[in-house]
């Protein structure tokens, strides 16, 4: 109990510290922070499904795209509302539409296991991306613009920095709550051995659907923020394979075995990309590739895994 309160206090302190950072940092660093929070948020959403159940989606950008376009289209309906209301409306639209579509595809797609689920999610993302590019409602190849909702008194990057931080905190809290709940234990059982879980009375189908829909809906709401921050979206910019891959890579680099894995992975990967490799832009892809191979071969449980192993060794 005491440990739980300590963790909670530390988390609150950390979030407060991160929240006041924009007052002291240059715009560039605030934007780096914003990128980290967004990719950490996406990675945690992906991890909600993959980390709990080992269903590795290769097409989570589908939910980013759905959230982004749902927000853009929803905002057209309320051009005159107060910015705060518009923001809530856009986030809600991303959450609900992504969650709704996730609910529709969950049952058929979750019957597939292993590689087949992975590829099927890739196909979902590809189909939706092409459909959005093909149909004029979504602006076709020219895309859609979103209004700037940041108040005049606040720097745009700081505004989105706070929103992304808040969303990340919410997503992490949800993941943490699940991990200690009956749902969390059931999902872990599914991850370890789906058939044995079912024999023990875990309602496997229902639990997988819940995890999938939750993961999709939350990805959609962060997708809405992602779109608002971009200000202008096309099918290519939000239905982007590299977005799906970043969620996977960040989670693996950080470590699949812990909720903090995806966050640490996103911080390291985004930090390395934006700060260390800023001058090596030409070789950015190659270095990312080397990093991925190195992590998989040398630190298969990610950074968190390395740290845990070290602590275990010290304890002995």
């Amino acid at each position, binding site marked *: 109990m005491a440990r739980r309160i300590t963790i909670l206090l530390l988390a609150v302190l950390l979030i407060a510290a991160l929240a006041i950072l924009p007052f002291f940092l240059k715009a560039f660093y605030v934007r780096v922070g914003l990128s980290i929070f967004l990719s950490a948020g996406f990675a945690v959403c992906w991890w909600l499904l993959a980390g709990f159940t080992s269903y590795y989606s290769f097409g989570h950008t589908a939910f980013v795209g759905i959230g982004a376009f749902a927000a853009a289209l929803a905002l057209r309906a309320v051009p005159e509302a107060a910015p705060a209301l518009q923001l809530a409306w856009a986030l809600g639209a991303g959450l609900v539409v992504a969650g709704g579509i996730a609910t529709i595809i969950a049952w058929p797609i979750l019957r597939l296991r292993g*590689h087949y689920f992975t590829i099927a999610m890739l196909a979902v993302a590809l189909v939706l991306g092409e459909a959005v590019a093909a149909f004029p409602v979504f602006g076709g190849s020219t895309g859609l613009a979103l209004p700037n909702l940041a108040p005049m008194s606040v720097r745009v990057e700081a505004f989105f920095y706070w929103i992304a931080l808040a969303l990340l905190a919410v997503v992490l809290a949800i993941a943490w709550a699940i991990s200690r709940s009956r749902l969390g234990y059931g999902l872990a059982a599914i991850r370890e051995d789906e058939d044995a879980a079912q024999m023990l009375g875990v309602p496997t189908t229902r639990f997988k659907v819940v995890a999938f829909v939750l993961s999709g809906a939350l990805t959609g709401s962060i997708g809405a923020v992602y779109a608002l921050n971009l200000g202008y979206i096309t099918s290519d910019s939000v239905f982007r394979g590299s977005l799906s891959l970043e969620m996977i890579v960040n989670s693996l680099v950080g470590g699949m075995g812990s909720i903090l894995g995806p966050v640490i992975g996103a911080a390291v990967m985004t930090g390395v990309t934006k700060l260390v490799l800023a001058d090596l832009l030409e070789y950015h892809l190659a270095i*990312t590739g080397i990093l991925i191979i190195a992590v*998989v071969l040398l630190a298969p449980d990610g950074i968190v895994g390395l740290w845990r192993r070290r602590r275990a060794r010290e304890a002995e």
Partner: protein
Amino acid sequence: MTALVQTLVNGLLYGGILSIAAVGFSLIFGVMSVINLTHGIFVIGGAYGALVAWSVLGIDPLLSIPPLMLVAFALGWGCQRLVIQPAVERGNPVAALLVTFGFTLIAVNLLTVTFSSSVRSISPSYSFINLRVGDISIDLVRLVAFACGLALIAILGSFLRFSRWGRVIRATALSELGARLCGVDARAVYALTFAVASAFAAASGVLIGMMLPFTPAEEVTWTVYAFIVVTLGGVGSLGGAMLGGLLLGLVSTLTQTYLGAVYTNMVMFLILLVTLLVRPNGILGSAFKASR
């Protein structure tokens, strides 16, 4: 009527290319159960190799196929041994997949730095010749590429069927444990499989380079097409890759002609999704082993 026949002919020719461009991917998935994301880069690498041979050395693309296959074979062998095998031995299927992704990023980067990201194409002297049969016109290049594709598939087929190593590959695909108990070195078989698959991917890349413009980033397209072909036709069988490729080629050109080019990819991806949901083992089913 003529338009339909013309579309069907184009579809079959394109489908033949899609078939040969997918056999390597299919082989690796069938034998090693690894989703090989490096596939597309070997295809595109083949196209760039032919470009160099043609523009620098003046070698006809078709003649550059055998040496390029050798190079790709060696590269594939090395890549498998150094990078992919250690990941396969981790026992986590996603580890292998990620490693192939990492390798692809490196290769795309190197290709982009070397050749820039601008669109390239190879146009040998015969590339603008049209054959006419009645009202149907056929690009000579496409016909030649189609024929070469079929020949390559036949070569690979007889290698797998009749050669000692081909039989070992098929046996390993059926049961790795069984093959190992019979004294087969599974690691050597995996390396060989990967090398052969890479060689055939590069060969298909040469043919593609003769027909279509390409950039380093195009590799994604060819990996995804290979996915679709293999999913349609079934994992690990050459017949499946043939069937899947031809079907996909027909669907692609029919959609393009009758619905519009913007819908082509959407329809192709939709077919991938529906096939997975309805018949996850493909139309012919898995020739080598049950899917997991």
